[in-house]
Each structure stands twice: as structure tokens, then as C-alpha cells.
């Protein structure tokens, strides 16, 4: 394994010492730059009660380049596509090397509370969100129930 920058080691150390409320971060075997994340859906959102799986990877250029993150749990959200890819400015051109894994995950959690259908990644979902927000929120709630709540109840070990 290549030398791991001090910054990454310190970030991991801090995440372990002082975990982010509602977000679990675990390294995946034999790749210190690769993490499994479980994120709790924010309250007062259609994602409330759900536990969502994500994967996060710190590329070689990190922190000069943003981390790569995607949802593994199926999401009904205008800024998240079918493969779980996330449209969020700080993961793209608004990235700052002073941002961290912690702040990135908090921003993603905030995105769940405040969907932005005007900057969509999933066009069909965004259209639904704009034309009938109530129905869209209902679908998101159903998906949360199906893919982020029931899955865990049936078998806590299973990959959602």
C-alpha cells in the first residue's frame, strides 16, 4: 500500500473519535481510501427513518480533488440518479480542499432535506417533483420504506 497522507489518517482518526451524528463511516478491508457509509435520513423529510448505504473513495489527488461518493441504496431524489450518483456542487466545481469527508457527508444529508429539482441528475424524478410535489414525496417515502427500512428489518446483514 502506498504512503497514506497525514491528512487522510487524521480525518479517519477524528471520524472514529468524534463520529458524525446519524452517519456511520467504516473502512473497507485492504483499501484505506475506500469507505462504507450508512446515513440516516434526515427528520421531516421523506427519507426519515431510512438507513441509506453509500460508498466513498478518496482518489489519489484528494484533497485537491473531491472524494467520489455514490448511494448504493435505491433513491427517489431529483439530484440522485439510478446508479446512485449524486449531483452536488461541492463534489464538482465548488470543491474546496478545505472540505472533508465529514463535511461532504453532512452536505449530502442536507441535500436529502432540500432536493433541488432545478439542477437535476435524474430528469424524470425532477419533472415529477416539479409537476406534483406531493406525489413525488409520497414515492420517495415509499422507496425509503421499501429499500431503506424493510431491507434492514428482514436481514440486518443483507446488502440493501
Amino acid at each position: 500500500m502506498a504512503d497514506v497522507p497525514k491528512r487522510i489518517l487524521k480525518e479517519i482518526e477524528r471520524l472514529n473519535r468524534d463520529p458524525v451524528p446519524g452517519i456511520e463511516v467504516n473502512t473497507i478491508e485492504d483499501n484505506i481510501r475506500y469507505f462504507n457509509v450508512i446515513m440516516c435520513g434526515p427528520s421531516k423529510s421523506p427519507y426519515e427513518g431510512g438507513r441509506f448505504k453509500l460508498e466513498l473513495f478518496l482518489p489519489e489527488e484528494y484533497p485537491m480533488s473531491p472524494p467520489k461518493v455514490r448511494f448504493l441504496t435505491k433513491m427517489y431524489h431529483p439530484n440522485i440518479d439510478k446508479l446512485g450518483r449524486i449531483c452536488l456542487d461541492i463534489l464538482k466545481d465548488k470543491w474546496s480542499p478545505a472540505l472533508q469527508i465529514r463535511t461532504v457527508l453532512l452536505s449530502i444529508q442536507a441535500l436529502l432535506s432540500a432536493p433541488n429539482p432545478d439542477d437535476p441528475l435524474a430528469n424524470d424524478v425532477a419533472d415529477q417533483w416539479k409537476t406534483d410535489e406531493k406525489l413525488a414525496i409520497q414515492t420517495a417515502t415509499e422507496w425509503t420504506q421499501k429499500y431503506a427500512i424493510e431491507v434492514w428489518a428482514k436481514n440486518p446483514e443483507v446488502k440493501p
Partner: protein
Amino acid sequence: MVEVPRNFRLLEELEQGEKATSAGYCSYGLADLEDSLMYNWTALILGPLNTPFENRLYQVLLRCDENYPKVAPKVWFITQINMPGVNQKTGEVDLSTIEYMNKWKPSYTIHMVLEALSEKMTRKESRLPQPDKNSTYKVIRPDSKKPE
């Protein structure tokens, strides 16, 4: 070197495939746009000029299992093709017989597999009589989640 995990490596390849201009002679993408494991890929290769494959489009299926890119993808021609290295009953490609692909390396990509197949089409040993245009192999590929 930092090792890029399978899923993020495939996402990169997908993005390159999506961005690629049509100027190329091959294109590729996910076979199932909702398959978040990105298991099956579908590709098209345009037969090179001045070969028996000229003016024909070849559909190819590639399967990247959990161990990709450490292990090579499995590759099948869907469109029938008479070419060395391709099993005439199933369309399966034996990558060990394809130049540039015989020793798989994790740095190789789906695009490079397609390039190598296209290169194979231009070789002397591939100057063979061809089956009817647009005929396909009628087989159920082993451990295929969705038979074609």
C-alpha cells in the same frame, strides 16, 4: 499507486463511454441502466473498412464480475461473426487468443477490449466467409442474470 475500487473504476469507464463522440468505431454502455452493480455491459463495434466485416454492426456483451478489473471481463459476440478466437456456437470470445488482451492487466478497460476486437477484425487470419448479416447467437449465456 492508489487502487481504485471496482465500482468507481466502472463509473469512470461509464462516464468515458457516455462522453465519447460518435466519431469512434465503437460505443459501449450499461446493459441495464438500473443495475447499480454495473454487471453487464453492451457494446457496438462497426466493422472496419476493407475487411469482411465492413458495413456491419456487431453487438457485444461484456460481463464485469466482482473481481473486475483484477480479472478480465467475460466477452460474447451477440451478432454472429466468423473470426478466430470466437466460439462459433456461443459467440464467447477467448481473450487469451486476442492480441493485446492475452495477458490481462487491471489497467485494461472495456474500451481497450473493444479496440483489440476491432483490431483482430483487420488481421489476415480473420479474412473468412461471414454468416448472414444481423444473425445472432441463440444461446442462454451461463450465469447471465437476464438471458438475452
